[in-house]
Each structure stands twice: as structure tokens, then as C-alpha cells.
């Protein structure tokens, strides 16, 4: 059973009808191929139209869609010989951030990102993608290894934010995030970050201090979740839609402000409608991005990354 979002109701209705008719057609009651084709076409047009004018809140829902491809999907689709590397060598292993070593289109890379999980068991295992200090410290450890061996780093950002818990605070959540951001900024190897789902607050930027920051068409990237903003601004989390409208969290808005460098197009009905195409598309983009960076020296990489972030807010705003 597919998961439909509230605004996909008309699409869901059409698809239910298609299913009904094709069952009827198959049982030999009547040949309905012509009707079915017309219906399928209508559904496609509707899907395209719906997804071409999603508002910021609808995009938030798409970015969090349970069937949207996650880190584990990008790894299995794009990374060969992946070896997961676990633990921060200090306290433990946080599965909200998964990382390791692998080959991406022939090139060895260090890969890491938030993983939210796809069912109850894996969501609990990965703590819904909300990392604790150990996750960020593992990220630092893997980034250091990448630098040591001259390997590019690919990160995948998909988190509502860092985990707000007693243990996380006791073990220095803030320091862990700050160090991870710092490590990304100072690495002498290429770093490319992709916001694949939701990029929420400090927990996101800890893995997005990159030379290039890409974002999927319907992903969002924000200082705080729309719900969080609404509860602070109006003491009413249910006004998340209003907060989303105000905060400029969508890919085109972020591109205009220079916060992201490139938008990666999603399949017509969003990444979840065709994960394979999405993964392949992102792979192609990442390959080109890595190629373009292969000409930069370690010094140039550090300099370009610093300039990228220094420029934000100084250029292109009105």
C-alpha cells in the first residue's frame, strides 16, 4: 500500500480507480485498455502539476516522505564495496549517522550521512536520524581518515535536528556539532554535501560544511523545523505551515541566497515516486561535481570552501 500525502488525495483517488479498472479488465469483464491509458495519462499530468507547484509546507511533507530514498538507499545504489565504519572511538556508535568507505564510480570515497530508518525497528535503531554527540564525533573521525588518505567526502543530510536529550547534553552535544562543522570546513580534500531530505538546524550543518552543497528539488534546509519555529513564534506548533511559508526553506529560495549551490531535479512525483531514477540522477550529478573539483589543490579546496561560506549574505541578497 502506497503512502499518500494529504495533498496527493486526488492522485490517490485516480490511482485507486486505475487499480479497480485494471482488475476488472484482467478478470475478463471488458477490455478497458483505452480508458486505463487515458486515466494513467491524467494521473501523470496531475502528478506533474501538483509537484510543480508545491508550497513550502507541502515540500516539507515530501522531504519527510517515508518512502523517500534515504542514506542506506543511496549507499546501496551508488557505492560499491561499501564497508561501514562504526564508532567514535570515545564513547560509542550512534546509528543516526552512518558512514564508511566505498567506491563511487571507480573512485574510493568516504561516505556519511543521517539515516532516519524506514520502519519502526530501523527508526528506533537510527533514532529517527537525530544524532547524539557520538554521531558527530564519528563523522569527525571519518573525515580525518578521508583527509589522511586523500579521499573525497560525500555527505547526505537528512535530519530534523540533533537529538535533544539528557545524555546528549551531558556528553557535549554542542561541542560535538561545532567540531564536526569545523572539521568539514578545514578538510584538505573535496567535500560535497547533499541535502536529500530535511536539513534541520545545527544537526544538519555539522555534515554540510562542504565545498559544494547540493539539494534535491523538494528537500528543505532550515535553521529550525517549521514546527519548532511555530511553537517559538506563536506557541502553537500547529502553525508550522505559516512558519514554513515565512522561513524560505525551499531549494529555489536557498539557491537564490547562495546557501546551496545546485538543485538536483527529482522525478515528477518526487523522489519517492521513483527512487531508482532519483538515486541515478544524484549519482550522475555527484560524479560531475567531483570531477570538477579534482583540479583543485588542497589549499585551493580549503580556500574555495571558506570563500563559499564567507560570501553567504554578502552577495545576492536584497
Amino acid at each position: 500500500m502506497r503512502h499518500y500525502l494529504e495533498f496527493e488525495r486526488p492522485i490517490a483517488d485516480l490511482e485507486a480507480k486505475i487499480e479497480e479498472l485494471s482488475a476488472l479488465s484482467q478478470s475478463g469483464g471488458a477490455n478497458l485498455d483505452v480508458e486505463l491509458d487515458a486515466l494513467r495519462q491524467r494521473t501523470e499530468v496531475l502528478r506533474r502539476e501538483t509537484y510543480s507547484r508545491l508550497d513550502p509546507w507541502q515540500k516539507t511533507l515530501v522531504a519527510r516522505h517515508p518512502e523517500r530514498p534515504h542514506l542506506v538507499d543511496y549507499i546501496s545504489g551508488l557505492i560499491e564495496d561499501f564497508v561501514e565504519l562504526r564508532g567514535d572511538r570515545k564513547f560509542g556508535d550512534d546509528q543516526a549517522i552512518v558512514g564508511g568507505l566505498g567506491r563511487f564510480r571507480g573512485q574510493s570515497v568516504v561516505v556519511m550521512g543521517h539515516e532516519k530508518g524506514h520502519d519502526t525497528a530501523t527508526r528506533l535503531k537510527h533514532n529517527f536520524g537525530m544524532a547524539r554527540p557520538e554521531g558527530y564525533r564519528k563523522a569527525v573521525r571519518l573525515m580525518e581518515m578521508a583527509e589522511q588518505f586523500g579521499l573525497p567526502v560525500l555527505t547526505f543530510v537528512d535530519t530534523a535536528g540533533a537529538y535533544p536529550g539528557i545524555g546528549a547534553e551531558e556528553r557535549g552535544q554542542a561541542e560535538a556539532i561545532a567540531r564536526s562543522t569545523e572539521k568539514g570546513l578545514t578538510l584538505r580534500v573535496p567535500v560535497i554535501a547533499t541535502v536529500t531530505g530535511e536539513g534541520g538546524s545545527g544537526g544538519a550543518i555539522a555534515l554540510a560544511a562542504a565545498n559544494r552543497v547540493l539539494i534535491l528539488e523538494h528537500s528543505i534546509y532550515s535553521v529550525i523545523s517549521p514546527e519548532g519555529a511555530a511553537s517559538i513564534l506563536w506557541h502553537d506548533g500547529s502553525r508550522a505551515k505559516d512558519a514554513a511559508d515565512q522561513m524560505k526553506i525551499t531549494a529555489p529560495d536557498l539557491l537564490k541566497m547562495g546557501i546551496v549551490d545546485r538543485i538536483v531535479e527529482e522525478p515528477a512525483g518526487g523522489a519517492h515516486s521513483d527512487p531508482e531514477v532519483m538515486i541515478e540522477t544524484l549519482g550522475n550529478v555527484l560524479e560531475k561535481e567531483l570531477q570538477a573539483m579534482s583540479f583543485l589543490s588542497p589549499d585551493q579546496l580549503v580556500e574555495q570552501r571558506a570563500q563559499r561560506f564567507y560570501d553567504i549574505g554578502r552577495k545576492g541578497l536584497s
Partner: protein
Amino acid sequence: MAMADKSDKGPKLPPAAKSAERRERGGWLSKIAPGISNFVGSKRETPENLWVKDPDTGDMIYRSDLEAALWVTPSGRHMRIGPKARMKFTFDDGQFESLPTPEVVEDPLHFSDGKPYKDRLKAARNATGERDVMAIGYGKVQGVDCIVLVQDFAFMGGSLGMAAGEGFIAAAKAAVERKVPLVAFTAAGGARMQEGALSLMQMARTTLAIQELKKAQLPYLVVLTDPTTGGVTASYAMLGDIHLAEPGALICFAGPRVIETTIREKLPEGFQRSEFLVEKGMVDRVVSRSELPEVLGALMSMLMSGKRKAA
């Protein structure tokens, strides 16, 4: 100076008797003529401004006594202070050169939460007399030249937006240019939501500025004051060579209320306070306000006397 653990008592306070007498007088005035402030004296001299309520005991404290005590109450609470008082208390003889903070694009998102962000900025500017949260001073602390950066919680909760980010970068740059240490007094409720992801970017941008200090081998000292939370803690507040904190300051990433609603439990007393952070290894030392200049001066002079001179 000795860096061994030392209990941190608040600074010396005026005799209790004096305060009591003044309390009496305040009571007398307001009892006899509640509206008297409308008729006599300038606004500055109204009873409300002459007396400050102790947030812990409810006692009224004579304002000038509190100022003389560096805004530390008799029970030792370090009340929040703005950049003017902070600079005065920190620099030798209160003397320093004020450095400008860069102008930034105002209200880039055209944000309104019912009240336009531009209006909120205006109101904060009127209330504090400052342009935004960061103030930069250059002068001597215990004879050591340094840049002091002060974040003002009274200005929109000290929130980290573009102006604060540029202010931090400017302070770091000023320190590098003058080859002096940077001392940052942090205070913030977190990121400035009204600037969206642009405010989030300041976490990375301020972190870059710290790298400039590192490259120049200049000390970066952080004094965490009440409250330091959210994106500020998760960036420049936790990246100092040394972290000091004022007593009892709330220092955290996620605020206590957020955690309580997540875990549906009451948090233990003292959780996320300065002393707790020392225990957990995130802060080097809790230092009372009156001792801060001495401690900062000693640390800076020792760090500056190292091998960088030979280099």
C-alpha cells in the same frame, strides 16, 4: 595565578543594613505617594529605576549598590548585563576603543510573524541603543592588549543572525590585524529565526573566523554567560582554546524546556548550568564576575608568552 579549583563566591557586597534602610525608604515613598514619580525628578530617578528586585529573594536592591557589585546579587546570582557594563567591568579602568560592527542586509527574508521583523529590530534598537547583538572593544585587560566581543542578550535574545556573524568575523579580524587575543562573552537564546537558514550559516562562518585566529596562533577565549544556547553553543562558544563560565549560567544546545517535552520528565537541579559543564568536561573553570579580568589577563599573558614569539 593559581588555577586550582577555588570556590566562587560573588564579589563583596554592601552591608545588609544599608540595603535594609534603603528598602525602608523606598517603601515609605511609594506608600505615601504612589504616583510621585510622575511629578518629581527625571525618569531615571523613579523608584522603579532606583531599585532592582532580586530575582531569587524578591528583596529590593539599591540600583547603585548592585552596579557597584557588578550586577551580582547578595545571593551570588550573576544578573545579565549588556555590552556597556561588560566592557567597563572587563577593560582596565573601563577604558577601551569601540570598534564598528559591519552593516548587513536587513530583513533578507521579508519576515513577519504577525509583527514584521523590521519592526522588531527597530524596537530592540530603541530599547538597547545598540544596532544589533555584537559589540567589539579594543583595549587592555590586566595590561594585556586584546579584542573583547560582547553578545547582548537584551537585544532579541542575543540571537545569532547575519549581523552577529559579521560582528564575530570582524572581531576575529581585528584581533588578527593587531596580533592580540580575542575574548568572546557569549549570550544567546540561539539562532535568529527571522533570518532562516542565513542565520544557520553563521555557525559555519564564525567557525571559519576562529580558524584565522588559530592560523595566527592567537588565543581565543570564551566566557560563557547566562544564557548561552542553541546554535551559538554549537559553534563559536564551544571552540575556544579555553572556556570560562560565569556562575550559574545556563549553557546548552537544546534548552531544558525542549528536553523536558521530548522526554516528559523534569530535569535535575543544576542540569546544564556552568558548574555542571565543568564537571562534564566542557568548561575549564567557573569564574565570578569580579575575578574575570584577573583570570583572563593571566591566561592571555601566559598564552601569548609561548613559542609564537620565537616563531
